[in-house]
């Protein structure tokens, strides 16, 4: 049984059909990557899954529960976290306050302290800067904060939207190695990326999205060697 099952998902913005019937699955423990050009609908799919966008049609199931019409703020507590595109950290709040908001749905103080230490261990920079306003962090640090904040909810599935956007190559390496670590610890990852090469390199399976439809799917390594993928997304 898939951990996340998206079936015939359709999303409209007014009269514009952004997602035209997309189906895919994410199994427990996998890293799944959705790749595609700008405007293909990657972000819309993630927003629809985590409840930020209304679905025109289709269903979303998470761990055997139908979450199609569950509002976003209740999905977090069910064990799914979403690291949004552009980081969206709370600039006027400190790093620590941001992290605590990540654990908004959790109430056990001791467990929280434990998770916080875990996050600090993974992102030592965040510990150093815990009392600094999030808006004063660099882009890479903000990305780490956005990821750390999502981990604070102790998710079993984490959705990541363009985590490498706007970062230097060294930081991109670092972020992807962190995603690999998070996955190694048993968190299932659904990754949306424009950097197809990097995304395919850490994914188990991948789906290629084109103007609201899935046009290709399969093993990430195989897709990396697919001629059409190479030409369209890997710049070879």
């Amino acid at each position, binding site marked *: 049984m898939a951990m996340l099952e998206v079936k015939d998902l359709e999303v409209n913005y007014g009269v514009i059909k952004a997602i035209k019937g997309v189906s895919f699955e994410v199994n427990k423990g996998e890293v799944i990557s959705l790749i595609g050009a700008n405007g293909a609908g990657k972000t819309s799919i993630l927003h629809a899954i*985590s*409840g*930020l966008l209304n679905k025109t049609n289709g269903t979303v199931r998470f761990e055997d529960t139908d979450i199609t019409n569950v*509002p*976003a*703020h*209740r999905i*977090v*507590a069910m064990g799914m*976290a*979403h690291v*949004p595109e*552009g980081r*969206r*950290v*709370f*600039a*006027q*709040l400190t790093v620590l*306050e941001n992290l*605590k*908001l*990540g654990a*908004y*749905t959790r109430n056990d103080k001791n467990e929280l302290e434990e998770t916080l230490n875990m996050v600090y261990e993974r992102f030592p920079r965040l510990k150093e800067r815990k009392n600094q306003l999030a808006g004063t962090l660099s882009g890479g640090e903000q990305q780490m904060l956005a990821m750390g*904040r999502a981990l604070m*909810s102790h998710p079993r599935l984490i959705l990541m939207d363009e985590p490498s956007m706007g970062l230097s190559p060294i930081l991109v390496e670092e972020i992807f190695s962190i995603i690999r670590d998070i996955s190694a610890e048993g968190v299932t990852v659904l990754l949306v990326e424009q950097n197809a090469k990097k995304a395919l390199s850490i994914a188990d399976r991948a789906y290629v999205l084109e103007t609201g439809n899935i046009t290709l799917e399969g093993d990430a390594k195989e897709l990396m060697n697919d001629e059409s993928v190479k030409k369209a997304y890997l710049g070879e």
Partner: protein
Amino acid sequence: MSFLNYFINGLSLGSVYAIIALGYTMVYGIAKMLNFAHGDVIMIGGFAVYVCTSSLGMHPLIAVLISIVVCTVLGITIEKVAYKPLRKASPLAVLITAIGVSYFLQNLALIIFKSDTKLFTSVISIPLISLADGKLVITGETIVTIIACLIIMVILTLFIKKTKAGQAMLAVSEDKEAAELMGVNVNRTISLTFAIGSGLAAIAGVLLCSAYPTLNPYTGSMPGIKAFVAAVFGGIGSIPGALVGGLLLGIIENLSKAYISSQMADAIVFSVLIIVLLVKPTGLMGKKMSEKV
């Protein structure tokens, strides 16, 4: 009367403006709308106390508590009925609705309480303090108002800094969607903000009517507008800004009345606002928010 006297009275008037401005500024910060019905909630708060004390003969303190409850419920109801359905509508539609709610409340009060001005009995029974051979006279209302404003500011600041609900409010005011992804119930947070703002309006209403002991269905509109000016003056969306804006406005207004002309006082107040906005468009303590692309 001495300068100090005018100044202290201005501080007291400014404290009322600040308490009202907090409601404007918090609602603006969270819901990104100007709730022009806020001033009329003050009037309803005043009438609630009036009915409880004058008609039902209750103890003033109980009357004030009832008034706070009435206004809190009213605030939540206004938000649910009038503003929530417009969450995705254009800001202009929301603004016009707010003005509509304002007229609705005024006319409702007009039907129930008629248009004649009622004499409001002050709920504060602290005697005058006379210092320096009667050169400095401070009324009980003045002292209570200033102290109430300070206590409210401290409690509100602690609430926002230290509680989960307060942090959720800050998160919603900065980024609704991101807050939702944290598990924050945005609708409930907006309701809570209206509840707090309207509860504060009740307190402001009681203080205002105690200091200026008259009450009619239009009592709330001018202080409401002044407090809106105070909020913009201090930087709308900023809580310390509401305090600074409110106090400054009250002091400027009172000193203008004392030394320049009482007819011109309002004109001077609004001129100061225009000048501040020309020099610093975000208000005294407003932060410039960069628009996300």
